[in-house]
């Protein structure tokens, strides 16, 4: 009688063919790095979103980890991702597949993933100094945006403070409120001017002249900066998709709905007073409408060099980001940011609200002390941070990491030292781009 195949294998496992012997184990969590012991260290996939910081000196690998994390959140987890602060045009290369052969080999070796581009759409906020780098964006996707007129009218003083920091509309705001209906109908700056000319009191007499001047100045300033442009059809405040059902929203949410990744190019905003106000508008808009716009879905907002938009607690962008940090779990919006200056990030954004921190080499004692107190770090771990090499980092958490090794999946809550996994999307410093 012939022995069955199964029985034969039981008494002599050596006869297993490769397919039976080498079992494919999917990584169902979010891989981040390879520990010194060869474990694949992951952020666990959970029902709730998380918040994470990537900290370290310049050139150590922060943005590279950000690039990898964005791909994993989008491709492997199926989450929505929005890049909210590309200050140095670094994300232009992310919409190509990784070209560096060594990086490709490394990532394939460890997690069996080959190169893959991220479907980025570059968003340029319109300003009076914006230039679109046509040569760099020849085969890429982009659009220019403006803030919606009605949004600005609803909170005129807030936006005007972004243009003129000491501006106070005071009681004059009531006159604007009375004219909102008519202003909403305007299609050109001239029409706005006409409505104001016609309807603001003080046309004939001098009693309301200062108020009139104040309001005219305010609108002129907004128009001059061109962040509010109601005439240019190439600048979009809202976008829409028609299928499977009509969806109209801000450009970020529409691009995410279409399964793209929006990337806000902020290089032109560096010295603009209204930068914080503008970023605040998009963050607030995505955040407050998320449960309605993306029911049952998770969205992560990624900020590179967070300090450039969020340093003081009372800045509009800080308040909006602090909201995501504090209440993101309720609205299913997670937060990830990279920074060199962890000590300069407002307390409303970091500290106990952070679930994970990936720290690259840093010598600043103040930064190390702050990280140390937020994550109960021992002195030996702080010393390790000072001596990390490029692309090496230490993962810290107030929750747990999940590790994969030798076919097993297990939880670890201690700090883990390791090497980042190289991105599957291309990564180049802007200066290195051809």
């Amino acid at each position: 009688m012939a022995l069955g195949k199964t029985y034969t294998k039981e008494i002599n496992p050596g006869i297993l063919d490769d397919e039976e012997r080498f079992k494919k184990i999917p990584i169902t969590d979010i891989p981040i790095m390879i520990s010194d012991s060869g474990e694949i260290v992951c952020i666990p996939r959970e029902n709730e979103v998380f918040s994470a910081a990537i900290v370290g000196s310049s050139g150590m690998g922060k943005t590279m980890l950000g690039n990898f994390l964005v791909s994993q959140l989008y491709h492997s987890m199926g989450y929505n991702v929005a890049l909210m602060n590309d200050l140095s045009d670094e994300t232009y290369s992310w919409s190509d597949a990784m070209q560096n052969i060594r990086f490709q080999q490394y990532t394939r070796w460890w997690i069996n993933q080959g190169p893959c581009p991220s479907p980025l759409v570059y968003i340029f906020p319109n300003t009076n100094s914006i230039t679109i780098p046509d040569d760099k964006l020849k085969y890429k996707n982009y659009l220019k945006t403006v803030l919606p007129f009605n949004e600005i009218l609803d909170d005129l003083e807030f936006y005007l403070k972004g243009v003129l920091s000491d501006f106070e509309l005071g009681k004059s705001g009531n006159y604007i409120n009375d004219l909102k209906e008519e202003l909403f109908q305007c299609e050109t700056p001239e029409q706005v001017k006409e409505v104001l000319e016609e309807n603001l009191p003080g046309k004939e007499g001098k009693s309301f002249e200062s108020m009139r001047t104040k309001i005219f100045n305010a609108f002129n300033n907004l128009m001059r900066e061109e962040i509010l442009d109601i005439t240019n059809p190439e600048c979009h405040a809202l976008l829409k998709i028609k299928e499977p059902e009509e969806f109209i929203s801000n450009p970020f949410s529409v691009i995410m709905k279409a399964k793209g990744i929006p990337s806000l190019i902020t290089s032109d905003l560096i010295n603009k007073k209204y930068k914080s106000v503008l970023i605040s508008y998009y963050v607030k808009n995505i955040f407050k409408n998320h449960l309605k716009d993306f029911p049952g879905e998770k969205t992560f907002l990624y900020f590179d060099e967070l300090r450039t938009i969020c340093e003081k607690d009372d800045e509009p962008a800080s308040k909006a980001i602090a909201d995501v940090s504090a209440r993101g779990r309720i609205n299913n919006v997670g937060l990830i940011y990279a920074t060199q200056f962890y000590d300069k990030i407002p307390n409303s954004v970091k500290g106990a609200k952070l679930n994970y921190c990936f720290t690259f080499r840093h010598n600043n004692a103040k930064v190390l002390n702050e990280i140390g107190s937020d994550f109960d770090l021992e002195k030996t771990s702080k010393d390790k941070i000072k001596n990390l090499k490029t692309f090496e980092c230490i993962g810290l958490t107030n929750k747990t990491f999940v590790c994969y090794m030798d076919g097993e999946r297990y939880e670890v809550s201690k700090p883990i030292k390791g090497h980042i996994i190289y991105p599957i999307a291309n990564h180049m410093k802007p200066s290195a781009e051809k």
Partner: protein
Amino acid sequence: MMQIFDIDGEKLNSIKIDFSSEEYHIEKPFIVNDILKKKEKIPEIKVYPDLNILKEIGFILYGKELDKENRWAKRQKHSLHLRQLEAPIEKTFKKLIRLPTNHYIELDINNSKVRVHGDFVDLREKGVWQEY
């Protein structure tokens, strides 16, 4: 393909991306497990500062010369690759006679495993134990 329109229903010319294209599909990450691999004992690690131990366990440390653009550490000229004596190797591998500075060999004597530590180790092999 999900098309994006402006508020008046005009197609956006500067967005030509097909987000659902095959280009953006990638297999989810996975690892491969050898089900015949023996259950490991609690490791006992011994550290060796030179290559002599490798001779005893039948291993050779090779160096592979790297172009400038492919180096990842300061003062690096080679990537390091640990191989068994009889294992097939790439043509460009050259046997090393001593360990670079700040590199060392680790043996897990309870599980009969070896690995090499240091900045120049081929990144794919960094942290990887090999059985001896």
